[in-house]
């Protein structure tokens, strides 16, 4: 008994080493595994932000009075806005917005200051390019807060009564609402998923196409041993690269890591295991490498888009939300963001661990079953 266990380990180790070599010995596939994740982390870490800077704004100010100029100065003084030009008639607005030369046009009419001094309400027209509706909403938010501030100051100076009640907003966990703090932990999950899927999804299909998988099946290796050996490179490479990206997130992008690292690694291990399971399942289902690659695409792309990485799951229709429960990235993202920003510990995250464990278990056992049962 003891000896057979030892033999089993030897067989697994031999296969694992061979699998690792198969991935790493080719220079091109080594480069593909190492260079893009680093590059992507850097590029996406900076690029993937909802915060708006340098919004191109055009000003059409028909009222040259002091309050009008003050309001314009406040808008242009904000780091979010960047003046494109001043307009002097209505006709210029349409072309400017259509051609994307300005995202917004702020129009102060002739009666602006007269209305203001009279104690009435002065209207400011705002024209926004709605082609990206999210940007349009955010710009509107920025301008609203500039105007509320102006209103408070104006009320104080002119002796108007202040509003009877005011809203005081305090964002938790991310006081300055930096979207990079939200996106960069997400990238850790995103890239780990891409890497593990790439490493594992072709591993069986390649051998099937070359005919060597049949040879593997007639060796003393049992399906479970093949499974462990084939999973090994994916898990190892996933963990190493995941750790690297994680440390870049903390050291380079300076995202605060407030919770327990142990809780994060439990999540990462389960997540990578489920990614490996899905990759191997796809790989054993496919008859050719092309099919395996297609399968990997069909898994990775929806898994990323429906994970809550960029757009919230809560906004999705009920049916699609149900689908997301099968997406391991969904759970890992909550764990990543929870540990990074909310300081979560393992006990708070139990609900997110076990679904990944189930996904891993189901896919790995299905893959092992397919080893023997899918043969032409």
């Amino acid at each position, binding site marked *: 008994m003891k000896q057979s266990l030892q033999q089993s380990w030897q067989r697994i180790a031999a296969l694992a080493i061979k699998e690792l070599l198969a991935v790493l010995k080719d220079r*091109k*596939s080594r480069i*593909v595994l190492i260079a*893009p994740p680093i590059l*992507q982390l850097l*590029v*996406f870490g900076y*690029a993937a*932000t*909802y*915060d*708006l800077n340098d*919004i*191109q704004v055009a000003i059409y100010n028909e009222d040259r009075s002091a309050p009008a100029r003050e309001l314009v100065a406040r808008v242009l003084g904000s780091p979010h806005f960047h003046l494109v030009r001043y307009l002097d008639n209505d006709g210029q607005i349409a072309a400017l917005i*259509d*051609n994307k030369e300005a*995202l917004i046009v702020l129009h102060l009419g002739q009666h602006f200051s007269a209305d203001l001094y009279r104690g009435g*309400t*002065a209207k400011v*027209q*705002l*024209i*926004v390019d*709605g082609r990206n*509706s*999210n940007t349009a909403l955010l710009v*509107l*938010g920025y301008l*609203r807060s500039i105007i509320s501030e102006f209103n408070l100051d104006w009320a104080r100076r002119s002796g108007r009564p202040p509003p*009877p*009640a*005011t*809203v*005081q*907003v*305090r*964002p938790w*966990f*991310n006081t300055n*609402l930096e*979207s990079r703090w*939200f996106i960069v932990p997400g990238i850790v999950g995103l890239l780990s998923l*891409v890497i593990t899927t790439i490493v594992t999804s072709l591993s069986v299909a390649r051998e099937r196409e070359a005919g060597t998988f049949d040879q593997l099946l007639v060796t003393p290796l049992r399906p479970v041993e093949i499974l462990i050996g084939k999973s090994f490179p994916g898990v190892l490479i996933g963990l190493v690269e995941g750790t690297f990206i994680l440390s870049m997130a903390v050291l380079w992008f300076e995202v605060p890591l407030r919770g327990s690292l142990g809780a994060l690694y439990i999540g990462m291990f389960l997540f990578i295991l489920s990614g490996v399971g899905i990759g191997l399942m796809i790989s054993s289902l496919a008859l050719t*490498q092309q099919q395996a*690659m*297609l399968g990997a*695409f*069909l898994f*990775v*792309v*929806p898994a*990323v*888009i429906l994970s809550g990485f*960029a757009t*919230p799951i*809560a*906004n*999705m229709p009920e049916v699609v939300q149900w689908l997301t429960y099968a997406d391991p990235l969904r759970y890992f993202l909550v764990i990543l*963001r929870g540990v990074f*920003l909310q300081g979560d510990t393992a006990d708070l995250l139990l609900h997110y661990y076990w679904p990944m464990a189930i996904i891993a278990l189901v896919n790995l056992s299905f893959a092992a079953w397919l080893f023997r049962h899918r043969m032409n």
Partner: protein
Amino acid sequence: MNPAAATRLRLRAMFRKESLQILRDPSSIAIAFVLPVFLLLLFGYGVSLDARHIRLALVVEQADTNTASLTGAFQHSEYFLPMAYPSIQQAERALQTHDVDAIVWLRNDFTSRLLAFGDAPIGVFVNGVDANQARITQGYIEGVWQTWLASYAREQGHEPAVPVALEPRIWFNAAVRSRDFLVPGLIAIIMTLIGAMLTSMVVAREWERGTMEALMVTPIRIWEITLGKLLPYFVLGMGGMLMSVAMALWLFDVPLRGSFWVLMAASALYMMVALGMGLLISTVARSQFVAGQIALVATFLPAFILSGFIFQIGSMPEAIQVITHIVPARYFVAILQTVFMAGDIWPVLIANSAALLVMMFIFLGLARRNARKRLD
């Protein structure tokens, strides 16, 4: 036989061979037709940035008519799912465990300060982990507050007199539906995937099996191989494109304000760029494994993050903005969002099409050079 006729003959033969190959391998047809439908359905329904059903904890420490009218305003808003919490401690715990997204807290002195015009504070905590959603939530809460202020003032018998009021007009998307800009962007991503994946895998397979060399010793010229290979996939890809447009218009109700033929012409151009990209990848990679990996890493993720599909390019750091210029999806996303939502705005269309044309020549030229160079 004159050279032109010979070329035609060879091209036709090549086209026939590729078409047969496609018809016999259902996976290419799956990529071209099933993939777009599947992805567009999933994403069209799944990806949305419109915050709806924001779970809001309402904590009212001393209930009376004034607090009731304010909480009523939240209950009537379509954006919120308000839930009453007896104490702020319980609400805070719910915020920590993701049971609510935001808290509105009216302390026990709310009404007394309101009546005294004493700036009664409405405490708002939002979960800032997802900074974008937090900003939008904050905007909606402020919107409810302002509407309530106006109605409160009217009840008290005086005109609501805000000094400056913003009158926003959001062009092209008055209802601020995020789907209207996300669906055209998704079409660009899907077309990138299809074009690049189809060709990169298929041509890489030919290199891997050595049949490319066999082709090259025939009288056929390298550009004839290229064209003959691209054409059938071009037809397939355009079929997929047409289906995606039909779904956008009739399933997702995205308006098409520009002309259909402009859309088709731009799509044809982009299809060529994507196919050229796939061809280039295949000549660099020469094996299906590496080609598939490069296609996944070099096409999907940049098209998702660097194309302006979700994240505003103008707000990215300078260096990243430079990089976005080599992502072809960037130009196609701009064209699609403009043609669908704004109309045939020639300055935008011409500039972006010119960029695509240049990219097409670069990709095809490089692919050709690579193919020739590697043979000797």
